[in-house]
């Protein structure tokens, strides 16, 4: 195989080799009299990848200019400057490829009305290589050298990040050419670098009468013809070509103290920022303003941290900061919750200003960013907070290759599920209904498709995912265990983008971009569907399911309108449908529908006002059509409207938030309707349930000093059940504190109380999409609970490793368990089948996280328990004789590893390892005869366990191609789910064998390696 490849490659090279020579001969023939000029070499290497911007000085278009080359003048020559290689290119005509002129022979040239000089060629051999624009001649000539640097950085922005606007900018292409401009002058016959501001100051002055450069050129040309290269005199008029506001100063009132004006640096990242001049032996002060890159708002509370000295500070209410550092090389890290962490390399010479704009996005691959992210963790009192961005999510291997939000969440410590391909998840010993899942503020009652095989969220739409499992912000509530916030992208402001993905079972599509020319309004839309029916059709003809069908689809639409830097309006819509049916006798359908509108004000003074309202609906319909006379549809649904407001403002070292959270519920617990004309089923409907849940909250983030901060919150929760009036109310307390012992070592503790008034009615181990919801009423009290948490966090700054150890204890009351054989559907006396139980959960979570370098990821181990105990003793029927028994999701030991190895920029390998103790089950231990049949006698509830779970997945990812001429880009993932092929138990069931022996069986769903391929197309 290798030999064949080598032979093929050699033949290919032989075939292609003559092309260059052939091209050069063609040039010379066509160049005619100018052939001497065109004897330069062909460009040695084109940039093969797709990129943003251009490596040319201004644009790829060649323009006519005049040139002094090899002692001769050439006029009206097609010229362009490769500013990355500092090579001057000429073309014989538009149809010919360019050639590179030897730098030793080019003295100067004009292009686009600007004058460029090759200092090396006119007597300044020590000057950095390049063609300098002469901005003004004189005794102190001002020269500008523009260089283009090839960069690769996901998440950068057009314009400010690359230094100029690329009209063909493509946000999905990470490679670009960064424009860097440096100013020089000549002092005592030597070239000297000056700051931008100094250049500005000099250019404001009138030109003197000693045209140094012109004189030097005259020396080389032997005449005064240099001036004739351009119609315009070489003078300060060139300044007019500089970008508008190029020299705009930082407003003085935003700077604490006067700064050396010559030490201003721009705020673009991915380069070394030189601040100040000279060599200060004492400390240096860097000041600036941190703003939101998208809105331009100043951001208070940004942590600014220097990796070398471990000095840190925080931006004030106006986003201003000032930090004292040692001169020399430093790495300044900027971190703020919800914003992308930024690490800037700065070379400090004297006091200076560094303004920074923080984008919304996170980039976990950027080195040193982790340090800032880690430090941010040491600066906040928040605990049990995980944030995963979509780039990390799509790299985590998953069955069938589709980036799965919920599976990514399951890879976090403390998050579990009862089995593979099961909907719902359990956080720190809580049941699945104790997790509030918000998608752009809308509540998603069923976050999975196809019984849990896929999540409900289209990964192309999602921007990031946040999970709060301990310190839940005051504006969230109504659930006992966690809040999962999924935010979608807002749409590209520059131009239309899209993606198309094709997988084994699903395909998806998305489109985003601006609406109108103002670019103030953007949209994002997506759709996803499955074609799983074909698998069913391939089942044996005598299979009961051969004529069945199953599938899902979901749709997203989001519109964002930015009124100005402070006011934003956003509309979101989401719709999902699932269906499956078999042999036309039984069908299942369920759907979600969510819409919301949000208005947000974010003032420069740090004040935030946000209000959002919306409507959520989840509905499921079961069709039982086997018997004509008894055919019926059974429908249940939950609808809710919500209004949430938040007002937050800084006061001294406090940050106060307050608001109202109001939800109105409407539940249809069950409606049985006849199906078909011959059905004799009588239309029946359980009484609708209505309730309102108004909550007032206030919270305070109080930074007592640099080492100690406290977050406190109070929620006044109330719940009014309207159907048969019943009112519940009670306070919820949220308290957490942080003590930073060292800059990279902190301790935290927290205590939360929570209330929950809505319950998922399910007596199955896994969450079924057909499960229904129930409100608290006069018979079912709200579930209440508290959680105490403590943790220690240490960041090893040099390796970027974050170590964390968190322990928690959770106590719950009025959780719901079920009597054996409880009737949960169409039961008007449902509460009689429910068993209120105490719950307790405790555990320790240890995690090591690495987000720097080529290998990133995390590894965690958790020990946790979750148990129930009946609140009322009911004789021998009392579950576990009234003692504590295992919750169905109690899995004590859990080990997780998620790793990504970036072999190159494009190629990476991902691994995912998941181990956990088997879940508890109730098993039959005997049998007895009744009604002429054998039946099982069972153990106490959940007193046995299925075997442990272990799975390893591997994936090889090829990120979007960078080919120059490609109209589209594609990414490709190939992987294997369950590499070891371990037969992980999914469920256990028992059958009586032919010999009369009862035998247990384990069903393993993914009992072998599942290879997958996923192809994504970006355009």
């Amino acid at each position, binding site marked *: 195989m290798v030999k064949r490849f080598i032979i093929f490659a050699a033949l290919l090279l032989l075939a292609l080799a003559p092309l260059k020579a052939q091209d050069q001969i063609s040039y010379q023939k066509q160049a005619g009299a100018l052939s001497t000029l065109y004897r330069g070499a062909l460009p040695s290497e084109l940039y093969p990848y797709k990129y943003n911007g251009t490596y040319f000085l201004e644009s790829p278009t060649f323009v006519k200019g005049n040139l002094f080359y090899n002692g001769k003048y050439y006029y009206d020559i097609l010229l362009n400057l490769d500013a990355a290689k500092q090579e001057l290119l000429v073309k014989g005509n538009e149809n010919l490829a360019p050639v590179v002129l030897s730098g030793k022979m080019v003295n100067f040239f004009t292009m686009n009305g600007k004058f460029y000089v090759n200092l090396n060629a006119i007597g300044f051999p020590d000057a950095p290589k390049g063609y300098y624009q002469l901005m003004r001649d004189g005794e102190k000539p001002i020269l500008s050298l523009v260089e283009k640097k090839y960069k690769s950085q996901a998440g950068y922005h057009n314009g400010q990040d690359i230094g100029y606007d690329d009209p063909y900018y493509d946000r999905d292409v990470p490679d670009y050419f960064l424009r860097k401009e440096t100013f020089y002058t000549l002092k005592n016959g030597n070239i000297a670098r000056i700051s931008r501001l100094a250049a500005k100051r000099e250019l404001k002055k009138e030109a003197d009468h000693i045209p140094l450069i012109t004189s030097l050129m005259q020396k080389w040309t032997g005449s005064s013809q240099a001036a004739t290269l351009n119609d315009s005199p070489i003078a300060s008029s060139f300044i007019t070509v500089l970008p508008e506001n190029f020299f705009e100063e930082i407003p003085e009132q935003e700077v604490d103290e006067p700064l050396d004006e010559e030490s201003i640096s721009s705020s673009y990242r991915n380069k070394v920022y030189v601040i100040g001049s000279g060599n200060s032996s004492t400390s240096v002060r860097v000041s600036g303003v941190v703003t939101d890159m998208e809105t331009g708002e100043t951001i208070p509370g940004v942590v600014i941290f220097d990796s070398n000295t471990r000095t840190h500070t925080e931006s004030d209410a106006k986003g201003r900061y000032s930090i004292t550092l040692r001169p020399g090389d430093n790495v300044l890290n900027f971190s703020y919750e919800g914003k992308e962490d930024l690490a800037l390399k700065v070379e400090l010479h004297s006091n200076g200003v560094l303004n920074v704009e923080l984008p919304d996005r996170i980039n976990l691959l950027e080195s040193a960013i982790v340090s800032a992210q880690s430090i941010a963790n040491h600066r906040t009192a928040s605990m049990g907070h995980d944030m995963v961005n979509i780039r990390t999510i799509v790299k985590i291997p998953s069955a069938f290759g589709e980036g799965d939000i919920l599976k990514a969440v399951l890879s976090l410590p403390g998050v579990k599920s009862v089995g593979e391909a099961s909907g719902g998840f359990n956080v720190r010993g809580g049941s699945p209904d104790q997790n509030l899942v918000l998608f752009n503020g809308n509540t998603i009652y069923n976050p999975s498709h196809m019984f849990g095989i896929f999540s409900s969220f289209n990964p192309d739409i999602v921007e990031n995912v946040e999970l709060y499992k301990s310190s839940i912000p005051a504006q969230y509530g109504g659930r006992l265990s966690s809040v999962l916030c999924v935010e979608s992208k807002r749409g590209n402001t520059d131009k239309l983008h899209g993606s198309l993905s094709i997988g084994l079972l699903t395909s998806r599509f998305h489109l985003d971009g601006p609406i109108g020319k103002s670019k103030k309004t953007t949209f994002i839309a997506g759709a996803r569907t499955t074609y799983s029916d074909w698998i069913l059709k391939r089942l044996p003809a005598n299979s009961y399911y051969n004529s069945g069908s199953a599938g899902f689809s979901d749709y997203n639409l989001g519109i964002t309108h930015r009124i100005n830097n402070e006011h934003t309006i956003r509309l979101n819509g989401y719709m999902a449908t699932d269906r499956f049916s078999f042999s036309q006798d039984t069908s299942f359908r369920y759907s979600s529908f969510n819409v919301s509108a949000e208005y947000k004000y974010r003032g420069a003074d740090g004040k935030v006002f946000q209000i959002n309202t919306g409507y959520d609906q989840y509905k499921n319909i079961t069709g039982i059509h086997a018997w004509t006379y008894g055919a019926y549809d059974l429908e249940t649904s939950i609808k809710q409207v919500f209004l949430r407001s938040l007002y937050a403002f800084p006061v001294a070292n406090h940050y106060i938030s307050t608001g109202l959270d109001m939800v109105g519920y409407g539940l249809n617990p069950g409606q049985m309707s006849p199906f078909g004309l011959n059905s004799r089923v009588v239309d029946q409907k359980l009484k609708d349930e209505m309730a309102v849940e108004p909550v007032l909250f206030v919270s305070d983030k109080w930074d007592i000093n640099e080492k100690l901060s406290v977050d406190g919150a109070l929620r006044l929760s109330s719940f009014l059940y309207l159907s048969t009036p019943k009112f519940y109310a009670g306070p919820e307390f949220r308290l957490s504190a942080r003590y930073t012992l060292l800059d990279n070592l902190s301790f935290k503790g927290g205590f939360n109380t929570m209330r929950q008034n809505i319950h998922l009615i399910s007596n199955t181990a896994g969450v079924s999409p057909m499960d229904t919801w129930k409100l608290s009423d006069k018979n079912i009290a709200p579930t209440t609970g508290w959680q105490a948490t403590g943790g220690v966090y240490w960041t090893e700054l040099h390796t970027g490793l974050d170590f964390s150890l968190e322990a928690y204890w959770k106590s719950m009351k009025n959780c719901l368990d079920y009597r054996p054989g409880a009737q949960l559907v169409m039961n008007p006396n449902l509460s009689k089948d429910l068993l209120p139980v105490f719950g307790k959960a405790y555990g320790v979570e240890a995690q090591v996280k690495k987000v720097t370098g080529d290998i990133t990821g995390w590894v965690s181990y958790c020990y946790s328990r979750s148990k129930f105990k009946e609140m009322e003793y009911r004789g021998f029927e009392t579950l576990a004789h009234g003692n504590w028994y295992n919750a169905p999701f109690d899995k004590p030991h859990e080990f997780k590893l998620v790793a990504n190895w970036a072999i190159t920029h494009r190629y990476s390998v991902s691994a995912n390892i998941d181990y956990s103790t088997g879940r508890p089950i109730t098993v039959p231990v005997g049998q007895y005869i009744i009604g002429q049949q054998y039946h099982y006698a069972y153990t106490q509830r959940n007193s046995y366990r299925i075997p442990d779970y272990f799975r390893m997945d591997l994936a090889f990812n090829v990120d979007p191609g960078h080919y120059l001429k490609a109209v589209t880009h594609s990414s490709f993932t190939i992987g294997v789910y369950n590499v070891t092929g371990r037969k992980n138990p*999914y469920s256990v069931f028992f059958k009586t064998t032919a010999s009369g022996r009862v035998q247990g069986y384990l069903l393993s769903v993914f009992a072998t390696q599942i290879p997958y391929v996923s192809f994504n197309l970006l355009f």
Partner: protein
Amino acid sequence: MKKHLYIITSLLLAASCVYPFDVELPSDIEQTLVVDGVIVLGGNSYVNISNVRTFDGRYTAPPSADILLEEENGATYPGVLQFPGYYRLFTEDANQDSRYRLIVVYKDKTYATDWTELANVPTIDRIGFSADDTDVHVSLSVNRTDARSQYLSVSFQEIWHFHATYLQELGYNPKDNSVYFIPTPDRSRYWCWQKSNSSGNTILNCSGFGNIVEDWPFAKFSRSSNRNHGEYYIKVNLRSMSRDEYRYWKNLNDNSAIGGNLFSPEPGDVPSNLRCITDESTAVYGYVSFSKACSAIASLDGRYYIQKSSEGLYQFDPEEYRQFYEMGYEPVRQLGDGMGNLVPGWGQRRCFDCVAAGGKLEKPEFDR
């Protein structure tokens, strides 16, 4: 639905497998009492006492117990031991409007049900028959008289006339290993009667219907069944069930069907309506139902639906005759051997003897 979810998940993924799983079992489960009682006022009542069997075969023989049915007004009906573990109660004349409870005294512990009111039983409107390509379906139409008869237990007994597959035309003489013609075939063993009881009870939940439930299919048999040879009678016994009893049986069946998968209810012991009133912590399995009953008989001429089937006959070499005769085979009738010759066709005795096929020559009666 849960079953569908379970199976379709497995099928969709197409990579599932099933393998054995053994659990360590407790040792004392076989001592637990099991009571299976049906108290039918105006009909047969019985109580069955047994113990739990372990999966490895441990079983304690049915113990003796004292059984007593108490009427609220003081009347009592003791259980009479019929055979080990089986007690009959004579409740034919018991007051149907009273409340009852059952008391079981076993190993010095007393178990009792609560006082229970009997649910009314609806009337049977019709027993219908219909057929599709393969089966004959028997359906039931009932008229519910009040809401308490929302749950019904249906059992049935069948009696039908059938014939053997062949009329025996040949005989075998083992003395000389010869086959001979029977001049007058014996028709007395050609037609027989058969009687069968339904296995267990079929439960009907009428909660989705009005007062009239029409054509509820509760039984079926193959069109090639010998039930279609001639006269066919079915007696349907309808017994009212309380909601608790309905749920008990439903839960019991659910527990026994598929346990332990993600979409099946968490299994667990279904609580009995018996309690050990002398020791609350003592468990007991089983259920005692209290009900009223009614029945109806319907008949069918199965020849309308029959799909003929034949049982194959075998050809043996003469030297094999004795061997197969001793194995229960006998010559039945002549068959072509494919070469233009007629040779004896042999078959099991049940092919020509309906008694050997399980029938009786006398027409049986339905049980009371």
